[in-house]
């Protein structure tokens, strides 16, 4: 009998999108382009990234005197199109970022929550582990791991996760230390809610913002880390394409082709800059206390 007027229910997805209002546009466009190239790079790239054409070797970018629009950013020593290789390199950057951040964030958050929530002995042991981990320089640890494992995408992810979980663990621990004194946690405990449920249902949603901000700020560091390892020859291997690997190739003929060593670096720089600027915006919006980081 009741005549309920259905109010239009706002789409949750739209609500999420609305939160992006005011986000810096240029960084979002750059990040969007990188992700698009990672997903559909093969469709937009003018050439196959590994297509060698020795007749076209060492062509400068289009604005130089001998440059042409057929290879807008020039070609490398084997005549491979640099623009196509940069587009192809997006894939490695995005894949490594996704896996590395997901795993280091998940491990770090879990360890940090346990450490902060239980305190006492557990906390001491975990924090000591974090300290030990941080006493080994990250690139040195990476070299050690790369020497013991086979170099490749998987090893790069393992190395980055190994290096960065401590970062999440320390910050999340601090966050949980203050959250666990709140009344709602005490109520949940008195009501007999089990510890895993308290951690996942009551604490996790409250550290989600922090996690999101940390993850965004980590993107740039992951991309640089991957590039560094690949540059040393301990990361991504041919025929996969990575920006760091391109720089490593281009270093051999630095005096012949300035563009080959400049362009991939600019790709790295723009992507990291965009990720950092977006991360800064997100931090100011979601979790301004992290500004000290």
């Amino acid at each position: 009998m009741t005549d309920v007027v259905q109010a239009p229910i706002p789409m949750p997805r739209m609500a999420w999108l609305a939160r992006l209002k005011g986000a810096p546009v240029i960084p979002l466009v750059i990040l969007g382009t990188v992700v698009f190239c990672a997903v559909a790079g093969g469709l937009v790239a003018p050439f196959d990234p590994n297509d060698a054409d020795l007749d076209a070797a060492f062509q400068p970018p289009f604005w130089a005197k001998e440059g042409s629009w057929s290879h807008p950013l020039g070609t490398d020593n084997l005549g491979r199109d640099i623009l196509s290789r940069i587009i192809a390199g997006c894939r490695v950057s995005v894949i490594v970022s996704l896996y590395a951040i997901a795993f280091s964030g998940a491990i770090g958050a879990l360890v940090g929550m346990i450490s902060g929530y239980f305190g006492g002995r557990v906390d001491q042991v975990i924090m000591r582990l974090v300290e030990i981990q941080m006493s080994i320089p990250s690139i040195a640890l990476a070299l050690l791991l790369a020497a013991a494992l086979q170099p490749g995408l998987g090893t790069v992810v393992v190395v980055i996760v190994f290096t960065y979980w401590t970062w999440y663990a320390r910050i999340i621990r601090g966050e949980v230390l203050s959250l666990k004194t709140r009344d709602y946690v005490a109520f949940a405990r008195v009501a007999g809610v089990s510890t895993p449920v308290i951690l996942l249902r009551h604490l996790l949603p409250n550290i989600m913002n922090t996690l999101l901000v940390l993850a965004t700020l980590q993107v740039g560091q992951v991309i640089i880390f991957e590039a560094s390892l690949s540059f040393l020859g301990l990361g991504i291997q041919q025929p996969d394409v990575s920006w760091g690997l391109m720089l490593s190739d281009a270093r051999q003929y630095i005096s012949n082709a300035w563009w080959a060593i400049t362009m991939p670096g600019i790709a790295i720089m723009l992507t990291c800059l965009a990720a950092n600027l977006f991360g800064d915006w997100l931090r100011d919006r979601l979790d301004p206390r992290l500004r000290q980081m």
Partner: protein
Amino acid sequence: MWRFVLRRAGNGAVSILGASLVIFMVSRLSGDPITLMMPPDAPPQAIEAMRVALGLDRPLWTQYWIFITNALTGDFGTSYRWQQPALNLVLDRLPATVELAVAALLFSVSVAVPLGVLSAVYRGGWVDRLGRILAMLGQAMPNFWVGLMLILVFAVGFGWLPAFGRGGPEHLILPAIALGWYPVAAQMRIVRSGMLDVLESDYIRLSRALGTPERLLVWKYAFRNAAVPLLTMLGVYFAAMLGGAFIVEVIFAWPGIGRMVVEAVFARDFPVVQAGVLFSSILFVMSNLLVDISYGIVDPRIRND
């Protein structure tokens, strides 16, 4: 005070011990460590002899015990590539690495201090904005690419500076900039926020009211206090440069520990990799220890935490 120093030193020792355990375990990750310790073409009898000599037929914790007791006496094994004790090789390369780290630290401080002070004094002005842009770029550029760009411009382009090797002071300039570039942003922020705090304080207002010349006020009265946080952090940056110089050393063919470790990784010269990595960790922990202790001297409240 002595209890504080001892406690911190104890923590440091535990960290180094832990690091050695991590290094030991990683070296066992690939399965049979003999394959890492011997050249790939070693005869089977030599491999068997090595296995017994190193006690690799015994349980893992015994092996770690052997590793750590040998390491304590400075025995990290022999580099098969150079036929020398691995530790000697690392120590031979130490001066070059320290030289580069000192130069890089000097560079970063000499850029960060003026920028930090000026951006605090003229808050919101063009120096402040320039500093912010530099900081953003610094965080977004890999140091090895900065190094390559420096080589491209100053060595290949203008031919002003050498791009490779160690020699006179001119050899130091490019690698020091490449290595010192990254921490400029963080150091500048420390100086800037320190200066902003101090410039607001009563003693500065009072001396300004008394007519002290602005230059004296900023650079002597204010900066001396604002520099304390930076000074105490210098040890951390120095440690980071000692441990982070791997790629910069490779690019500039700088004969330091980092480059040696990278070469050893490719030669599968595992004793040298182990010695180099553990040595970097020890340097890192010791620098941090010195920072902690100097904090304790400057600020007694920290001793009781």
